[in-house]
């Protein structure tokens, strides 16, 4: 993890899923979305 945290919580995934499923993301499609506290880019 890049952010100072050991693991993310289940609700952090839920929050991301909620956003992607909501109308606020109506034109967001076809992407991979990491909820990883920055571990991918390290």
């Amino acid at each position, binding site marked *: 993890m*890049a*952010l*100072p*945290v050991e693991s*993310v919580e289940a609700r*952090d995934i839920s*929050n*991301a899923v*909620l*956003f992607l499923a909501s109308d*606020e*993301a*109506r*034109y*967001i*499609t*076809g*992407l991979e*979305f*990491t*909820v*990883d*506290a*920055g571990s*991918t*880019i*390290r």
Partner: protein
Amino acid sequence: MAGRLEGKVAFITGAARGQGRSHAIRLAQEGADIIAVDICKQIATVPYPMATPEDLEATVKAVEELDRRIYAREADVRDEAGLRAAFEEGVAELGPVDIVLANAGIAPMSMREEHDAWQDVIDVNLTGVFNTVETAKPSMIERGKGGAIVLTSSTAGINGIGGPTRGGLGYTAAKHGIVGLMRSYANVLAPHNIRVNSVHPTGVNTPMVVNDIMQEFLQADPSMGQAMANALPVELIEPVDVSNAILWLVSEEARYITGVTLPVDAGYTNKK
């Protein structure tokens, strides 16, 4: 219901109109106060009319109508000292900044090849983004309360689009460069709990895209028109679609999301 950004202060560049104004309004709707800057002047190689002081004033009015505070000043993201002065005055007025939106950008594409278009677009769209983060970073680190930064890139920051002109090549190079900045800043600032992400909009219904010169440019090369087509059946997305994505990224709901390139592109990138 309390807003999602109650008590936060956001620093937004390019806030006079278009996406920047939309971000200011959307974040203010969720309780944020706004430090807004915009050049409010023409740059010679930009073929469409840029924002005016009246545009910035309209942003001020829109935020004040939401009963949020806004400090607005004309500043050029290419001018580090001027940008810092505007930032510091805004902080003195509204308090320390939690959120930074490096939104200011130009699209100097036209059928008339302008020699200086390359340098101008690199200066505004890449160096200007760097200057924006550098301006806000020290106080965010020193304060020690974390924060969220969103850099506005483009689908041209992921794909080789933008066309063959000096301005178009510069645009694509600058928007790709933003991704490198975003990833480095995400790593450098993570220990301070400051998250950094980028958004990558497809064509948005703003004066930068919806103007005669851009339409002429797109129609001159049929492959460009085809290349601009989204996967979802929508020609242009609205500024608020980008604002909503940014709002989510800077909110507590995205507390562990950093280093992400978020396309807001109606499936454009995936289609390639």
